[in-house]
């Protein structure tokens, strides 16, 4: 049976309106409600299903971030993950933490924990990077199956259905491997009360990037963060003819 490592990132909840800081150095996070990155939730759900199908033996959730990152680890534990690892990264170091750093951290933990499968969300909804899975696979020199919408485990390999531009692509790859979860892979469950209670007793190990021998020196500098432009107001049209006329006028048809 496989040991599964899932990456879970704490992001601003998608139901919260994101506000840019007045000095344009980033977005306001203080006092703002956070939750688990939705794609990571899908990754966790998939890992838990693998365990329920007796494909996975143990699931470990990793989150890199400030102390509050433990909240999303708790959520993962309540969904059915067995143990958590919190890689503490705070302050300015966290603000410039990028997939290149996170992938090295995940790779190191994957090795230490003897993981056979690493599953992460295909992207985080805050930075939209869509790089962590790919880079982790590169660091480990493992095969990668990104944008997974279906995962089936064979004997020594996995079959993954991927959502690509033209439709669906089915690939096979050997284990160990890195997978990134796409939107349609599954619908994450709500943690049940008994599991929420149990999760409080599950262990969370705390480490630092330094403990793991990962250098988190920034590779980028944030120059400016700005609001998207506001949309122009619409117009009320009296009838379909005018609508068609307007569409023609605008060169849309």
């Amino acid at each position: 049976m496989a040991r599964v490592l899932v990456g879970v990132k704490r992001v601003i909840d998608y139901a919260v309106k994101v506000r840019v800081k007045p000095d344009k150095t980033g977005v306001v996070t203080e006092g703002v409600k956070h939750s688990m990155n939705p794609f990571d939730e899908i990754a966790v759900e998939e890992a838990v299903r693998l365990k329920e199908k007796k494909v996975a033996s143990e699931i470990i959730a990793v989150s890199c971030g400030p102390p509050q990152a433990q909240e999303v680890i708790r959520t993962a534990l309540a969904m059915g993950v067995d143990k958590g690892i919190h890689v503490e990264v705070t302050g300015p170091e966290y603000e410039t933490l990028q997939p290149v750093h996170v992938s090295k951290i995940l790779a190191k933990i994957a090795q230490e924990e003897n993981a056979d499968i690493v599953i992460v969300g295909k992207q985080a909804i805050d930075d939209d990077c869509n790089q962590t899975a790919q880079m982790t696979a590169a660091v480990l020199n493992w095969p990668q199956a990104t944008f997974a919408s279906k995962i089936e485990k064979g004997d020594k390999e996995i079959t993954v259905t991927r959502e690509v531009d033209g439709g669906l692509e089915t690939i096979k790859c050997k284990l160990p491997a890195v997978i990134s979860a796409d939107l349609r892979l599954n619908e994450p469950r709500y943690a049940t009360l008994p599991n929420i209670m149990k999760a409080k007793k599950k262990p969370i190990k705390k480490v630092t990037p330094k403990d793991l021998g990962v250098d988190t020196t920034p590779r980028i500098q944030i120059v400016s963060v700005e609001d998207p432009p506001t949309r122009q107001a619409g117009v009320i049209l009296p009838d379909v003819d005018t609508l068609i006329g307007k569409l023609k006028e605008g060169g849309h048809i």
Partner: protein
Amino acid sequence: MADILDSVSSVNLGEIHQTLYQCIYKRRPFQPRLTPTSPWNFPHPIVAHAVEGPEAVKRGLPAPGDHTSHLPKVSPPQQGTSRSARANQGSDPLIKDPLPCLRPSLRILNTLVNFLNCGEGKSINPFSQDRYPHVKRGDYTSLDADHLNFFRGLLGEGRVLTKPEDCEAYNVDWIKNVRGYSRCVLKPKTTEEVSGILAFCNERRIAVCPQGGNTGLVGGSVPVFDEVVLSTALMNEIISTNDTSGVLVCQAGCILESLDSHLANHGLMMPLDLGAKGSCHIGGNVSTNAGGLRLLRYGNLQGSVLGLEAVKANGEILDCLSTLKKDNTGYHLKHLFIGSEGTLGIVTKVAIQCPPKPKAVNLAFLGERKYIILTFTSNCVDSFETVLKIVRKAKRELSEILSSCEMMDELTMDVVVSHLKLKSPLPQHPFYMIIETHGSNENHDEEKMNTFLQNIMDEKLVLNGTATSEVSKMKNIWDIRERITEALDRDGYVFKYDISLPIQNFYSLVPAMQERLGTSAKRICGYGHLGDGNLHLNIIVGEFTQDILNKIEPFVYQFTSQLKGSISAEHGIGFRKPKYMHYSKSETSIRLMKELKVLMDPRGILNPYKVLPENK
């Protein structure tokens, strides 16, 4: 409509044109699949973009120039997509836009579709005068060109609607139970304009129907015959917000949700919240004394409205706009307007006490143990015991942080899941409960909530449940509760009852109705504000028939009256219930109400045929 959009990708606009014409002119009902059936399941990439777009649309606020902005908008169907919408912003390789140039036109189309969709799947309902032939038009003046010219002179051309198609949405109520045929909708912006309209109408004895967001559920907000509609839609100015006292002063036409967003910037919130928040006006809320989801904690509007300004039937402006917490100088005249449903005057401004926005919010969604249905006739009381135990415990253990205690039964959950494709957090249970806390300290509240949950689990009162403090998850759960009315509306013709019952009898009416109606109803379900003892009984049938109505009424009111309940807990009396008022109110009370009406509106022009029973 899915077909239409599919054809968009092949740029077949001729076909769109044709189909839209058919829909508009032949009133063919159609089912646009513009919103993904599940937030996790986009039916078609381009469709995703059609619903994506301005924040305002996503959150259900009318976008500028939105065709549908005058129509009731409850929690918008688009809401369910927000998870995927934001999750897909950026570089999702799947949700690529094959025809970026078409996006603006799709948005317009979407608006059109929403507009057409307001009558989705339902035939046009009959006029109230035909459905309720016993109600006779009063001796009011019919409008003529001179009257309209006066209104145009007062408000300008654009704020006097007279075309049938423009007036239609103002003539039909939200649940499409009643329909008038008014050919005049007035949209004043100021108190003085309201005063001018009423003085004119009073003198000529023209009947007036005040209307806010038109989300009322008892048929009070639309004309019965040809009453002039006075809409507060353009009276939407926020006048002042006091961070220290928490007092908000605003015009009556402000939309509840907009006020709440405005207050959030001041660390405050509205003291009431209900499913219709995206459309209902504060003036409408005050006029119906709306209760809602958190009355349990924040009390009713009789308490939180500190003052108001109203215009009497004769056009006189009454300034009771006090912002003082305490003011016992004489009679509290504001109470004449809170809950009088537009029959005593038109509310133009409101001063309202707003509580601080909670820093910590927790939510538990519980699945209840099986209960035994025992009907009223069998004279047993048990049945609801488990749920009641949980209510008792929640009130005691969560005490000062408890902010909401709601329940819904299995058939209610089923209607939401099947018509709106929302996902239930739990597998099937006979009962579901929502318990919410509002507080100022996360750790404190969470500990309390956890202890409470642990206790009810240890005592085996709940079968299953989930708990969360994540905004999006809480919102998804509240969506289920808040969109019940919308889902029921899609199920068929709805008979709606809003009943207060002593808490031990809270649910007894549902099994009693199920037994009485048997298979003649499609669905009989109950949900509501359990913590306040307020049950919403809903009976859904394929088509309205007098026969089924006779089976339900007056039985439902007699039953309630025998249990010493109220036949209208929070929705009011409106057009639907005046003749049943005596089940909850004494003859003396009704007589005094009538005397007040004569005093305030001697010519009877304000919202006639509503609230007060006719003189025998």
